[in-house]
């Protein structure tokens, strides 16, 4: 086995479940999340010389999966008459996926959602988030601010929870 392949397999073993859970929170459908993440890891292996040098390879995988989801959704929207918004139903085995916060997160514009996922779920700093998403740091801060504001509008209980922490 080539050293690069061994290194990739180590990364895959360590990161695959975490990436799947993060993407599952974002898309709500387990089968879709598994396909998106497996596809993203395939791309990661195809671009491994670049991905291995990335400051946050997991974030690269998650970003790639979420981008593919947007593309998938667009195609589906054109070909299937969908009513309302994204039709992915939350997996009933995991009640957390039905929480109002997760639902509100999925309603955010894709870039705001990606920033919140990377900053708050993957715990990246602004600079790494900016590099991962290919946007300036100021834009990351702006998307985070707007995304949080939208979540607060959607879920007034967030204010309440904070006041009672």
């Amino acid at each position, binding site marked *: 086995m080539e050293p690069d392949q061994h290194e990739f397999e180590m990364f895959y073993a360590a990161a695959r479940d975490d990436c799947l859970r993060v993407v599952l929170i974002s898309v709500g459908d387990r089968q879709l999340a598994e396909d998106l993440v*497996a*596809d993203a890891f395939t791309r990661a*292996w*195809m671009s491994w010389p670049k991905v291995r040098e990335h400051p946050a390879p997991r974030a690269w995988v998650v970003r790639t999966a979420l981008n593919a*989801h947007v593309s998938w*959704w667009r195609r589906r929207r054109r070909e299937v008459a969908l009513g309302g918004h994204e039709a992915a139903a939350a997996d009933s085995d995991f009640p957390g996926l039905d929480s109002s916060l997760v639902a509100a*997160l999925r309603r955010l514009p894709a870039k705001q959602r990606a920033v919140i996922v990377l900053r*708050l779920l993957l715990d990246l700093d602004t600079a790494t988030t900016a590099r991962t998403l290919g946007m300036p740091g100021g834009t990351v801060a702006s998307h985070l601010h707007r995304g949080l504001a939208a979540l607060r509008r959607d879920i007034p209980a967030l204010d309440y929870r904070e006041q009672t922490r």
Partner: protein
Amino acid sequence: MNDSTLSAAVKDQLTAVHDSLSTVHLKVPASEIIARARRRRTRHRRTALAGAGAAAAGLGLAVAALVPGAGTHAASSPGHVQLTAWTVTRLADGDLYVQIRQLSDPAALQARLRADGLRASVTFESQPNPACRPYPADTALLERVFPKTSRPGPPPAPDGVIVINPSGLPADAGVQLSASISQPPADSEVAAPVLVQASPGCTGG
């Protein structure tokens, strides 16, 4: 509540959801991921060879794709995501049909368009090239460079295709393609192309 405390509250809740998914595992073995990549690379090479063959045969058709499935319709079911990233087709009359399905490898798309004679700048998932300056254009010019998709004679442009007429461009103008993603219910497709002033830093010449 300021952003910092709100962010902490959201982070706490999302982390709790994440933790509740501890039994969720990706079951695809690494060997399958690597095998998929190998199959994909093989299809890449075949696609590139097929494209080169078509051009050599004088068909006036250039097809370039970055991911498997070039020239095919990818599955749209949730079970599979295999999307041709983009396709560039040059018709006999010189018009370019650009179909972008996935925001992938803008540099290669830019190179493809330039190779097809279009002064072009392409950026995905980032700010448009700061070296680009808007080109003053009236409606007549825009309609000449970006002809309507409903046009006489085959083939009609399918949905989602950007049609560009390079010969309609003034000598000092080029085309900028950039992309953005917004909320799915109202998401924008790849942003409408715009005219920019041609320059080495923006459109390559």
